[in-house]
């Protein structure tokens, strides 16, 4: 994937996770939001781990 797409994708996932976990009124929606939010941290941790 081209360089600029990764940060943009992670930013979109973060914002989507924030919106979903804030606005959805049930535990499932909040969990999906948390999962989306956790993705940038996961990507970062994996890259640091495998450096």
């Amino acid at each position, binding site marked *: 994937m081209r360089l600029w797409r990764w940060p943009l994708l992670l930013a979109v996932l973060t914002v989507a996770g924030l919106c979903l*976990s804030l606005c959805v009124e049930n535990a499932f929606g909040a969990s999906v939001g948390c999962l989306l939010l956790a993705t940038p941290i996961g990507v970062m941790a994996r890259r640091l781990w495998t450096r």
Partner: protein
Amino acid sequence: MAERFAARSSLSLRRWRWWHRWSSVLCTLFLLMLCVTGLPLVFADEIDDALGRLHPARVASSPPSLPIRAASVPDLVVADALRRHPGLRPRIVVFDADAPVIQLRLTRGPDDSYAGSLALSYDRRTGALLRDGEPPGSGVMRIVLGLHRQMLAGLPGELFLGAMGIAFLIAIVSGFVLYAPFMRRLRFGQIRRSGSPRLRWLDTHNLVGACVAAWMVVVGATGIMNTLATPLFGLWVMRDVAPRLAAFRTAPVMMPTATLAAAIASASAAVPGDRVLSVTFPSHLAGSPRHFVVWVTGRTKVRGRLMTPVLVDAATGATVMVARLPWYLRLLELSRPLHFGDYGGLGLKIVWAAFDAATILVLGSGLYLLFARPPSGRRARSEEGRLVRGES
């Protein structure tokens, strides 16, 4: 033409670099303090629990000190507190959203600040006294919160941190602009092991920064909004509330003759469907000397963040005014959960703490890059510059 474009582009990059460096220099130490104090605050509820938060279910065996009548429990609680502490005045009654607990605060004078207030907690169902005094460990958390919110310096500290927040946003945006040209020739997340430690830290700084940039922007922007809370509330009171309460401005603070139960019932009827969060007693301090202020909030997830103050006559118990908050205070209320990360349970709090730790890594590596000396000598510097630009 291509040379002129390259020269202009290089000048523009130098400018962005200047903004990134100096905005970071300005805010990094303060941001580090905010991130470090923010970590325990993310888990404030869990820390309260661990330090002995009240769970009425666990103390249900304690004999109720007062007769049980659900609607009148708040009044009975106030009467009991005043009997235990004669000479003090009730200031605020808070209804816990997560547990059947009523917290009451007393002060000596009606206009004293809450700083030296006495806290008592009661079982909302039975009126039994659960705790007389502050919860253990609350002093430490109050200092941590004071540092995080205003560096223990009041409104000037709050506004100063707001300015640091703006510098932080500039640093993030300029960092993002610099990210693409400096990483153009590298794969995403590549950390070059062949170069100096400085280069490895630069790659780590870029990777972590790019991953958490969106979160940092959201939490930074909502943090700036929070630093404006006091002036914005002041503006609203000055423009919308003070003119309607002008007749009472110099009036002495009255001791309510209407019951709390009547005030709560009246406010609930004025804003049907909402939940009562707290009631403040008559005072010149953030209220009125002749009225209760009943704070109500919605019951759904988002509406639960939107509070509405209802002014109730302390003599008759009749609702005088439902003071709907203006749009800028609504925006402030909606921004708060996005700053605190307290709206999605423990899972979200763990994610929030991970982002916070990653931000500490970005700030720490930024400090290292600022102070670590680049290699000396023209050739070594040229080599370093080539590697920094990703020309490995």
